[in-house]
């Protein structure tokens, strides 16, 4: 790792101020991607601003059917939260599948969403739940937020402070982990609400997380695994690597989607 200066932000405003100092300053939350990247000397920020201790970015609230999760909330907190288990158990289940206990106690919702790793779990849920990504200056719909592999609508110094979504009627998440990294080789989050069915797919798409419109249409009329039997996923849109060909991933998208629907509560 190259030498770097560490700053602990006390508030969102403090974080933004600190971001303006230093040659190349980066925000760090759980650091589950950034720190390993730095250790491999593939990233060399001059300064890091730690967001994990900002009070206004922490905590989980559910009120009036709206779930709000502070960006600095860890995966372990989401996995074990009684409020989220009641409002959207599929999201707790998703959080419980991320990495290992160490990762779940360090990694945060905001970090995962902001990084938009094409194999991360949360982005699929954000899309399927129609979540709002709340930043220090605006609210961005998930549909507009994820713009490509590791790309988001965030501006350079913008900070995610929370994610918000309406508790769905039913939701389910099914993940097939990469045998090596245990990131999602394919993860499908399905959510049914009054406004319809949304399906978010992570790990599989060549452009990163995406909504599966074919599946959404099929499930809108009949929210059951069988409704997906005729739906196809085009391998041409899939990632292909050592662990999974595009054809295999296209298959996994359909299998995981059926299992997510079957598991939806």
């Amino acid at each position, binding site marked *: *790792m*190259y*030498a770097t200066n560490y700053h602990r932000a006390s508030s969102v405003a403090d974080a933004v101020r600190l971001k303006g100092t230093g040659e190349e300053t980066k925000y760090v939350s759980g650091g589950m991607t950034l720190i390993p990247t730095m250790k*491999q*000397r593939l990233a060399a920020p001059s300064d890091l601003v730690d967001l994990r201790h900002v009070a206004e970015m922490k905590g989980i609230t559910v009120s009036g059917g709206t779930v709000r999760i502070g960006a600095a909330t860890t995966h372990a907190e989401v996995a074990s939260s009684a409020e989220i288990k009641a409002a959207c158990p599929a999201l707790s289940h998703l959080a419980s599948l991320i990495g290992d206990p160490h990762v779940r106690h360090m990694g945060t919702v905001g970090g995962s969403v902001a990084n938009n790793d094409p194999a991360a779990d949360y982005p699929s849920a954000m899309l399927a739940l129609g979540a709002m990504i709340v930043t220090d200056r605006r609210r961005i719909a998930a549909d507009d937020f994820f713009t490509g592999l590791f790309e988001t609508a965030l501006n350079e110094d913008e900070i995610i402070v929370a994610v918000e979504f309406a508790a769905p009627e039913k939701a389910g998440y099914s993940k*097939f982990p990469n*045998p*090596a*990294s245990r*990131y999602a080789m394919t993860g499908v989050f399905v959510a049914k609400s009054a406004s319809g069915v949304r399906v978010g797919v992570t790990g599989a798409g060549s452009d990163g997380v995406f909504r599966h419109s074919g599946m959404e249409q099929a499930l809108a009329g009949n929210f059951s695994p069988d409704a997906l039997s005729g739906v196809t996923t085009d391998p041409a849109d899939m990632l292909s690597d*050592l*662990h*999974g*060909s595009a054809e*295999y991933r296209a*298959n*996994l998208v359909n*299998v995981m989607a059926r299992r997510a629907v079957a598991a939806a509560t």
Partner: protein
Amino acid sequence: MGVEGIGARVARKEDKRFLTGKGRYTDDMVVPGMKYAAFVRSPHAHAKIKRIDASAAEKMPGVIAVLNGQQMLDDGIGNLICGWMIHSKDGSPMKMGAWRPLAHETVRYVGDAVAVVVADSVGEARDAAEQVVVDYEELPAVTDAATALTAGQPQLHPEAAGNLIYDWAIGTSEAETDAAIAAAAHVTEMTILNNRLAPNPMEPRAALGVYDSAEDHYTCYTTSQNPHVARLVMSAFYNVAPENKLRVIAPDVGGGFGSKIFIYPEEIVCLWASKRAGVPVKWTSDRTEAFLTDAHGRDHRSTVKMAFDKDNRITALKVDTIANFGAYMSLFSSSVPTYLYATLLSGQYAIPAIHANVRAVYTNTTPVDAYRGAGRPEATYLLERTIETAARELGVSPAELRRKNFIRSFPYQTPVIMNYDAGNYEASLEASMKQADWAGFPARKAEAEKRGKKRGIGMSCYIEACGIAPSAAVGSLGAGVGLWESAEVRVNAVGTIEVLTGSHSHGQGHETTFAQLVADRFGVPIDSVSVVHGDTDKVQMGMGTYGSRSGAVGMSAIVKALDKVEAKAKKIAAHLMEADESDIVIENGEAKVAGTDKTVPWFQVALSAYTAHNLPGGMEPGLKEGAFYDPTNFTFPAGCYICEVEIDQETGKTDIIQFVAADDFGNIINPMIVEGQVHGGIAQGIGQALLEGVHYDAQSGQLLTASYMDYAMPRADDLPSFQVSHQNTPCPGNPLGIKGCGEAGAIGSPPALINAITDAIGNNDLSMPATPQKVWAAIHAAH
């Protein structure tokens, strides 16, 4: 056996320090003035070095020296060598290309070291290493061994035309074998791939070189399975220093699996750089460097023909293997696909004609050498996949086909050198089938079918050769060293005991099992026994730990030394009690005169030896004896493994439902430690069969699996609880009747697993690792 003697489940003495973080590893060593090394490594798989410009790096903060391969050559540091001579079937010696510790003309794999920076801190050394400018002229690369043998491919070493290191054969003549195959009632033919593995010990390699200019003496702390061999090789071949001026210390070592047998460039460079730079130099590999530079294992491509008569007896076996050696010949690489592989191709079966041909090939990849099992897993996988396939083709049960062909009388001379001394293969087969409820499998399969799962069962009957090895025998086969072991037993003046051994423990629990031997012999508490190993200044000489040899060879040396100590102690005790020496019995911590109530405590015997006030006439004072033990034969652990799996047809994911291991290791000193060895071995075997595989980009030669993001190591939840049992036909060849247990799990398990998966999916065309993607594709190809 007593509570601490032979056969007792004594908790490992060494675990207290390991589990409390108090182990002392090479990277924990600190000496005054110590500085840090970082290596400049080739980013190319094959290139000429046109120029190395260190001027910018030398100006970086904290930099003490930037050193290169030309300087090493100028200082007379020798080439790295392979220490086992193999002759091709035309009589010519193997074609060994030059391996420089720091490449100065050509780099041949990604990670090949070209320069080293010594600096005040690791960070400064690495920062400066990035500023070393190496001007490369890229050359085309080849990573696949079969491809490397074909015309028009990149050539790695001028010494090895066509990249061929040797073309070697063993066994029955090819003509006789071909004739038997031609006359067969059935021939099973297969192509068998054995995937390349990265060893991944928990502790990465490390070295600390300390040069003392006043004494012109070097000390090397390093992660070695055999510090004396390291000293020997670094002295005799690399010209680092004469043996009496070089002390090698291998302190606690966190796993080796073979990869820490070999002498690598880094420890040589640290020693040499310590003199050149005038400071002690430490290097610790990071995980990426470990993937790039630790010697890999396996990587065979073989074709096999197994011939049967009309009664389903095997009449002949013909094997043609291409072994990928990587860019350079590592220390024992040449022996792995020859005398550790082809000599085991008879397996547990009476096969009248066996012919094996092996070609060793250079490629632009990390060097390949011994990895847990070393040759024997490759032989077992080939045989056990083939006989399983034959059973399917012949329509007979896999157990019956094996039974029919088992060797049943011993000693048994195979056509491929080995002379099996003892065994009872039927016993392990029966024990494992019973434990696995083989007979109940069809009902379980039917039940799984109802749940939409494909269930399969597979077995593997392995044999391996351990206790390497009779020195004269391996010498005649080309080994550059003898493979005996040494021991010294020192009884201190108050009766506590130190055992000095040339074996080296890096996870095997020697501090416990070796102490149990002593406790058993004299009836003293094992806490009064200490085991000393891993330091060439403390232990006289030794050959180290690999090939499951520390029990059969290392402990046999201790037994010989104990015999001498016991004989002298009896003489002293007889003198003290005015009894006849032949009436003395030593047990429960005292010497007794048999049939009387006369006793002398053990400490009194020891004290008498050192006070020397009242010794038998002419006896030298002291109670300390040494011994060398040279084995008379290999030992032959064998067993039967059964694996049962369920496959998720939609995803191709394999769940291991049960894994049964029935092993015959002969006598066992500590069953708990042996079971731990079996568990670890099976975990590694399952890793090979299901998860692990080194992949290179065929064009660029870049390592694609250079981190745990892409190299899949087995995790606890990938593994079932293992059902382990032992059968026992004691080894007749050594005093303890033990055979060795360190590698069996990794040898026996891969074919059992792949046989089970292919049974489940009804498609035999499946290579390791059987990843979900490959299994899914195989299911679809079958329908």
